[in-house]
């Protein structure tokens, strides 16, 4: 065995060459859960303040009216729906990495998927707030849910917004359960090391996991079934979200390519966000041995693939607008490129179409710093993609007399920034409460300890 391992190591095929023993994994990962440092507290306070701004802004809007936003006629959807789609998109890569790559046995997912899944759950938690923030009468938002009532009033199942309710809630439920299930063995590992209140927390959440053969057997089965269940959701959620637009007749929205285009865009933005989060995590928590350049390169490749699909979709949209010959369709895309919101469109094209093309170079893919910068660009670009689709299309529809512009208000900006803090708040809690790297799965890919064989030093 030792020779096999050294052979793997020699070929560079060992996923984590710097991780020696099982005990190292426990030590390194559970170290993250120890007492937080100054930096964490600073970040956490910022996030907490942002959450305050978020709810204060929302409260203002509920009390005074949705008019505190900059929305108007004809632009009835703006920053809120843009940010909703943005966060739903972010939520995609988690399940992709954990479920789809699990089913395809991609060897590089183990170290990254826990963080990606956590990101998914928190991103859906963020996204799910936005439809509520967005509606005019949030106190009646529950009418979108089909619940039995004496008036026999049901939601309109033809409306994509109702599909949205189902898609997002289903996705949240499944990804939350999947996330939790995957953490159970690690929670047990944490329980075994923790003391005091923390121990109590892990005792409850680990559900009495003992690591017996039977437990592992059931666990693996449940995990693979849930992975299979979550896989179609990766495709369905963002397809449904895209239908919010594609099912309408707004020029710039009404197009059949939206579902695949949005799914690709979602994975693109999701992976970019994983990179954005993983780079500092790796640095601050000393996880270099677990999140290696190899992992980042794999994610960069996924980014490159989806970036190409997204760029292709952009170009297809323009081509079809021209090819349709319809003045409103052509006008909409002309306005998108050269109208009042030209800057948003060019930010989008630059960030999503041009900057990721640098990933064709291996040196860029293998440079953590470059990846971090590029991922930030992609995050910005993907937010603007939704802004461009929503705002520029609405501002320039069929009736020339009714064209108009929209300017986001302070409250909307507060809620947009607040949503990042709300996400950050949960993610920071996650890094201190749950093992950010899957301990158990990690041990599957490092060489097992052999009796009588000395550890390679």
């Amino acid at each position, binding site marked *: 065995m030792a020779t096999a391992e050294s052979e793997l190591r020699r070929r560079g095929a060992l996923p984590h060459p710097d991780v020696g023993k099982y005990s190292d994994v426990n030590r390194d990962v559970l170290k993250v859960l120890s007492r937080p440092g100054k930096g964490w507290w600073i970040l956490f306070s910022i996030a907490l303040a942002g959450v305050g701004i978020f709810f204060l802004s929302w409260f203002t809007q509920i009390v005074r009216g949705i008019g505190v936003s900059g929305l108007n006629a004809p632009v009835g959807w703006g920053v809120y729906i843009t940010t909703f789609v943005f966060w739903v998109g972010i939520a995609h890569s988690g399940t992709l990495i954990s479920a789809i790559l699990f089913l395809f046995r991609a060897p590089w997912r183990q170290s990254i998927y826990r963080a990606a899944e956590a990101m998914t759950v928190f991103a859906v938690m963020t996204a799910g707030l936005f439809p509520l923030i967005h509606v*005019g009468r949030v106190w009646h938002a529950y009418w979108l849910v089909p619940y039995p009532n004496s008036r026999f009033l049901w939601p309109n199942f033809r*409306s994509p917004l109702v599909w949205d309710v189902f898609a997002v809630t289903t996705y949240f439920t499944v990804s939350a359960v999947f996330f939790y299930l995957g953490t159970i063995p690690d929670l047990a590992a944490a329980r075994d090391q923790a003391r005091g209140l923390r121990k109590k927390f892990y005792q409850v959440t680990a559900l009495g996991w003992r690591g017996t053969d039977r437990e592992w057997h059931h666990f693996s089965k449940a995990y693979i079934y849930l992975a299979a269940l979550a896989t179609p959701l990766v495709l369905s959620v963002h397809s449904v979200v895209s239908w919010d637009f594609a099912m309408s007749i707004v020029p710039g929205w009404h197009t059949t390519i939206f579902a695949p285009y949005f799914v690709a865009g979602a994975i693109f933005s999701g992976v970019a966000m994983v990179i954005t989060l993983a780079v500092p995590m790796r640095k601050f928590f000393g996880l270099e041995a677990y999140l290696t350049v190899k992992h980042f390169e794999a994610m960069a490749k996924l980014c490159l693939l989806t970036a190409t699909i997204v760029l292709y979709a952009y170009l297809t949209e323009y081509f079809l607008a021209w090819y349709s010959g319809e*003045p409103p369709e052509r006008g909409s895309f002309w306005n998108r490129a050269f109208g009042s919101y030209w800057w948003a469109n060019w930010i989008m094209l630059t960030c999503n179409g041009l900057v990721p093309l640098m990933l064709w170079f291996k040196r860029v893919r293998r440079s953590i710093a470059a990846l971090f910068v590029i991922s930030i660009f992609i995050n910005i670009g993907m937010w603007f993609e939704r802004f461009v689709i929503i705002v520029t299309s609405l501002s320039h529809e069929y009736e020339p007399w009714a064209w108009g512009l929209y300017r986001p208000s302070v409250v909307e900006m507060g809620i947009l920034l607040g949503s990042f803090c709300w996400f950050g708040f949960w993610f920071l809690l996650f890094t201190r409460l749950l093992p950010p790297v899957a301990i158990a799965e990690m041990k599957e890919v490092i060489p097992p300890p052999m009796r009588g064989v000395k550890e390679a030093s």
Partner: protein
Amino acid sequence: MSDGLKRRDFLKVLGVSGAGASIAGCSTQEVERLIPYVVPPEDITPGVATWYASVCQECSAGCGIRVRTREGRAVMIEGNPEHPVSAGGVCSRGVSALQSLYDPDRVATPMRMGQSGLEGTTWDEAMQALVGGLQGAANPLFITGILGPTEELLVNQFVAALGGRRVVFDPLYDTALREATRIAFGVDALPHYDLANSGLVVSFGADFLETWGSPVAMGRQFAHMHGVDHGEKGRFVFLGSRLSLTGQNADEWIPIPPGSEAAVALGMAAHLVQAGADAGPYADLLSAHSAESAAQAAGTEATAIAALANDLASVPSIVLGPGLAGSHRGAAAANLAVLVLNAVAGNVGQTVRIQQTQTPTGGGFGSLLEAIRSMSGGSHGAVVVAGTNPAYAAPAGAGFAEAFQSVGFKVAFASALDETSAMADLVLPASHPLESWTDSMPRPGVYAVGQPAMRPVPHSDSRPMADVLLQAGAQLGQDYGGATSFRDFLSQANAAWLAANGARVGLTGDPAARWRELLRTGAVSYDDPPPEVSSLQPSATALSFDSPAVDGAGDLTLLVYPSSRFGDGTQANRPWLQELPDPVSKLMWHSWVEIHPDTAESLGLRTGDVVRLTTDHGEVEAPAWVYPGIRPDVVAIAMGGGHTAYGRFANGNGVNPMVLLPPVQDDASGAMALVSTRATLTPTGAWRRVATTEGSSDQDQRNIAPAVALAALGHAAEEEAGHHEQLQELQEIGGFKPSETEGRAEDYPLPGAEYGDYTRDQPRWAMSIDLDKCTGCSACVTACQAENNVPWVGENQILMGRDMHWMRIERYYEAVDATHAGTVDIRFLPMLCQHCNNAPCEPVCPVFAAYHTPDGLNGQAYNRCVGTRYCANNCPYKVRVFNWYSYTDLIPEPMTWQFNPDVTVRENGVMEKCSFCVQRIRDAGNRASVEGRDIRDGEVRPACQNSCPTGAIVFGNVRDTSSAVAGLVGDERTYRVLDELINTQPAVHYMKKVTHHEVDSGEH
């Protein structure tokens, strides 16, 4: 005992909360007694509207109105179809009278000027002060607006008994035309025009669709003349330096410089005289003129002038005087020239009727100037001002305010305080016209009585001015035949006339019955024409027909014109009108300076750049509005803005252009010279977003408002059918059943509509809008707002793009060129909910708030709306408006009294839109089912249709083959906006505008 609530603390809490409760419960007002509605007043049935015929007093046109009251409150004003002048139409200003009735800034009690300004007092003290003040005063001066004939009689008697003088000031009264008529025909009255029977209308700048003459009546006649209903289409040529709304409706525009009207009119007349027409005593005058001289003055080609002159003589035509906006130092001469042209073209006695009739005193500026001089000279011991606001509406340089201030005793009758009454020593709250009696003689042969529609609004302790005068007269020992109220005075004044003429005008029975019938119908007409004059008289007055003097420096002539929304500013205190997009500029809430694109370019200006407009007399700052419909050498600004003491809705909005004008008049007639000075434009460097709803005035190849050439009529339908084949072919490719959207009655229900609740035996409500008749006057917009409790939102919300109108008038420029004579093609398109059969808004609503009613309406259940705004996004017509705030909560008492109880008042966060006045459909349906019949055609008339002066809107059941709307829907001109592109199957069927010129009617 250290734990728990201490007795002392308990008492403290009890004391504080008890005090709070008792403070909240305390009120200085008496506890009001609740009175159950057990025995309702006789003429009020809860839930059922009562209509009162009355007379609109927003301008001197005297249109007939019907006021709809519910439970004793006036809630709606509509045109009186039995009135011979307005025949059912009304304008925005007329409808908005409701808002001055319920104006929260109305004078609450009589007021006297004290140490710290006006202080409230009682009527007893006020009457004492009035009687005392008038009794001792030497030569009291009465300054009033135009009054009804009987009220004028009373006021004149009152003034005569006091030994005083009366002056009338109404900037919107065409004194110059009246004087020109007197000079030309010896008749001291305004001519009566018969547009309906002419084939060519030439207007020298008279804004007869907006502010000049009788806009509602002339709009109706114009639509008849200009429409194609009777087989031919009249032509309308506009000569003026700026396209007003009236000008925008023209077929051709000769952009003549201001002041050249007389030269052009005389040149045209001279051309006709050369061809053999008779100019009577004016032949000598005309010999100095010719088509060439006219062309020179107009800056155009002589052939164009000659051709137009020939056309005038060859068809029954009409030439309309320069009107108010063109009024200058030679206004009477210009009007005289136009009358001479009418006479030479053979129109006088045909389409232009000069009738000798009793006419109320006109309101010139000359008499006001004289009054100002005599006030400053100290010759008046007292001044009474009523129904006019010279401190605002006269040029500031006239010095009215100073002269008025110098008078010892100043009385103002005012419903709401304005700039003039705010300076008075005694302010008497006058009842609103809708609370008072009046009468009118809008034209010879028509007599109308205006009755109050409701008891005075209790927020204002008001009395009608005429009643106060009668009461004061009694105290002063004057005799009015025992009349103690103006109602008695009016019926006494009418009794003899009714007895003699009642049968002739269709009023029979005993005096009381005749009187009742007169009140019920509102107006009577009789056709024994007064003596008519049709031959020109030599001018006894020496007039100069040269271009009038325009003083001042600068290369731009300043044109100040009456606002079609506010008139001279009287209507500026009404939020409906403030927020009504100006029919020309589509701007709201603020003033603007109109400049030609060339002028703008040379000064480096764009719309929204704040400019300083300076004359020798004053300066104002307002944003520029670049307008292709104004001559490059002219700059224009509307009256009505910049009030300083006219209530919360008027103050501070816009600027008052009267500060720019010198106090000059046309010497012959005393008309105010509005084109009298030059101005310079200086960019201030500031920019402000202009409050508008206009997205683009270019149709951008979308054929939203297509037109058809007159010559192409007759085979317009073939082209239309071709489009449908394309659509159907496309639909079949997708395996989709092609939709018959021809709109014929037998096509209903349309494919797809047979599912669900869309039953077969229901009516299908539909509307036809004739774009050839729509003049863009926007009366429908205000009527809709009044009927449907549509709130106004204020300038800031407009700037954010959040107007709430359920209806808007889109205005697309097709052909406008101010640099040379040519075709004008400006399209108006009233846009409202299209009530699509295949409505994009319905499937996207997650909660069925947008739904389809069995009779084909797009319902909107406000209570079910969550506010996702998806329906508005998906509406291709963009007719859905959203309540971003609780706008209706901001409407102050008692304006809320105007709310239509049949329509829900919407709250924050819900979507709303045009309902086709569903409350009226249901009302008619209920009535029909009680009477066991179907709804009759024409029984349901939405507010927009009912207000439309030109009859452009027709509503009805399109499945009833005999209905008016079904007939129109099958017309060759009929099309549906965007239907060919997105198959929405709208219920609003537009009829293309018909142009005299060729249009690119197909695909652009």
